[in-house]
């Protein structure tokens, strides 16, 4: 490829907290300062900024510009990402394009949110007339419907969903950033006995809304080298799709946008599912993890339960899965969620996994899911493959 090589040259993450009493600005500042400290980059070098629209501050349409003031930045490229949990991976991809276009040289992709402290979102639109009256007030009801349809078409072994929860929980137990109240071991019995939220969706299929933030430094490989940054990873493939099958009124809702992203990112990177060293799928609900295992070809469509039961998803296993606990077990820092699993993938590839360091770090597959639509699966899907530099 003649295109300039772009890398992620640093990451930073705050603790995930519940009802922290802090703002998205404060978490963003902590993540930003942490990124500068860990990379050695001076604030004055940062000339690009991507900010994720947070639930806790979204009543302000100028949050991204306010953020530049809060951080004392004067970026020549500013992006405000409104794809929910896809905004971090999507922000990295947009920053790469901006750098290649010469709009900036050193970009920070910043996501911070504090919805458990301050919920400012009002989705408006059709919901008051066509969704709220039937009792679909949030993602769990939509995912209960999705799970029911999946189970109807393919069968669903709840022990497999329990195994996903448990495998990820093992990562959270040794993740200093994980929400402290989630740091206790899980058993299959714990999963099965967790209360039904929207049948067949149980409490332990769901994330917990928390507060937190994360940040990534994106620049050219040449610039990273010139700045003395030794640890970098290359995003070698990225694809996204929004409103998949949006004009099909009777689309199969068990088919997701990832089914079209998988061949794109594998084609661009030359990798296949069996080549992936670790998988960091967006995990707002356990069924989303299982459906992604299928869509990326780790197993055939509909055989997720059997695959999960036969596969070691632990950090020393066949396919290490969300090794820091993912959102399910570290807590979901609002719409900064899309950076949580990305940070873990970069951390592992930098060899900074500590007690949960995995052995194979030549590549990682990271995904995002954003926004829950009417009676379907999810709004935006993103997929990014990272490879060692």
């Amino acid at each position: 490829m003649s295109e300039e090589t772009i890398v992620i040259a640093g990451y930073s993450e705050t603790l995930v907290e519940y009802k922290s009493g802090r703002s998205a600005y404060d978490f963003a500042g902590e993540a930003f300062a942490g990124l500068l400290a860990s990379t050695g980059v001076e604030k004055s070098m940062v000339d690009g900024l991507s900010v994720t629209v947070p639930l806790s501050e979204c009543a302000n349409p100028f949050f991204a510009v306010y953020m530049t003031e809060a951080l004392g930045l004067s970026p020549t490229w500013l992006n405000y990402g409104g794809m929910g949990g896809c905004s971090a991976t999507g922000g990295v991809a947009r920053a790469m394009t901006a750098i290649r276009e010469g709009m900036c040289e050193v970009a920070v992709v910043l996501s911070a949110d504090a919805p458990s402290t301050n919920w400012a979102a009002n989705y408006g639109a059709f919901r008051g007339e066509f969704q709220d009256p039937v009792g679909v007030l949030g993602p769990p009801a939509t995912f209960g419907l999705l799970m029911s349809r999946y189970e109807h078409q393919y069968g669903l072994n709840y022990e497999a969903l329990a195994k996903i929860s448990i495998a990820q929980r093992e990562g959270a137990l040794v993740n200093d950033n994980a929400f402290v109240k989630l740091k206790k071991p899980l058993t299959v019995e714990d999963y099965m006995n967790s209360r039904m939220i929207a049948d067949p969706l149980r409490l332990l299929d769901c994330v917990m809304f928390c507060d937190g933030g994360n940040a990534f430094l994106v620049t050219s490989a040449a610039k990273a080298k010139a700045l003395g940054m030794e640890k970098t990873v290359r995003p070698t493939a990225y694809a996204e799709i929004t409103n998949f099958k949006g004009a099909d009124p009777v689309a199969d809702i068990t088919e997701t946008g990832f089914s079209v992203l998988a061949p794109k990112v594998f084609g661009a990177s030359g990798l296949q599912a069996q080549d992936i060293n670790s998988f960091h799928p967006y995990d707002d609900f356990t069924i989303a993890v299982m459906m992604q295992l299928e869509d990326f070809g780790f197993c055939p469509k509909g055989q997720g339960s059997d695959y999960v039961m036969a596969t070691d998803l632990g950090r020393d296993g066949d396919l290490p899965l969300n090794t820091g606990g993912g959102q399910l077990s570290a807590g979901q820092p609002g719409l900064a969620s899309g950076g949580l699993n990305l940070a873990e993938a970069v951390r592992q590839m930098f060899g900074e996994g500590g007690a949960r360091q995995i052995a194979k770090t030549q590549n990682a597959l990271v995904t995002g899911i954003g926004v829950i639509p009417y009676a379907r699966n999810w709004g935006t899907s993103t997929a990014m493959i990272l490879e060692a530099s």
Partner: protein
Amino acid sequence: MSDQDVKPRPVPKANKYVATDSFWQGTKDGALLLQYCPDTEQFQHYPRPVSIYTGKRNLEWRKVAGTGTIYAATIVRVPGPGMDGRLPLAVVTVELDEGVRIMGNIMNVEPDAVAIGQRVALAWDAINDDIAYPAFNLVEA
């Protein structure tokens, strides 16, 4: 929860998103009216500012029979605004015979009797004394 604690359900506001007077007039007449794209002869739901099939604003409201098959089914068990006294609540996605899906509640059986594949017919869910919302009954209850 005692009856005294039951808060009234929020009243949906018409025409906030797109023009929906026809839908709401239909509920007063006991009919389910949905948006229809005459160019492609397809329904769409929820209502949109354009046809999702053509991008044009050539849209009508047409009555549907209200009969269909349950495509997905859940039982919502968590409280929230408008949920007082309704839990556990059978929430389904119905694939109407006209080829469009709509979410709704099942009114005539206990939630655990609801399953994918069952046939349903139009029913009405009283939001208050003045407003009834489209819902469904199992045909063979």
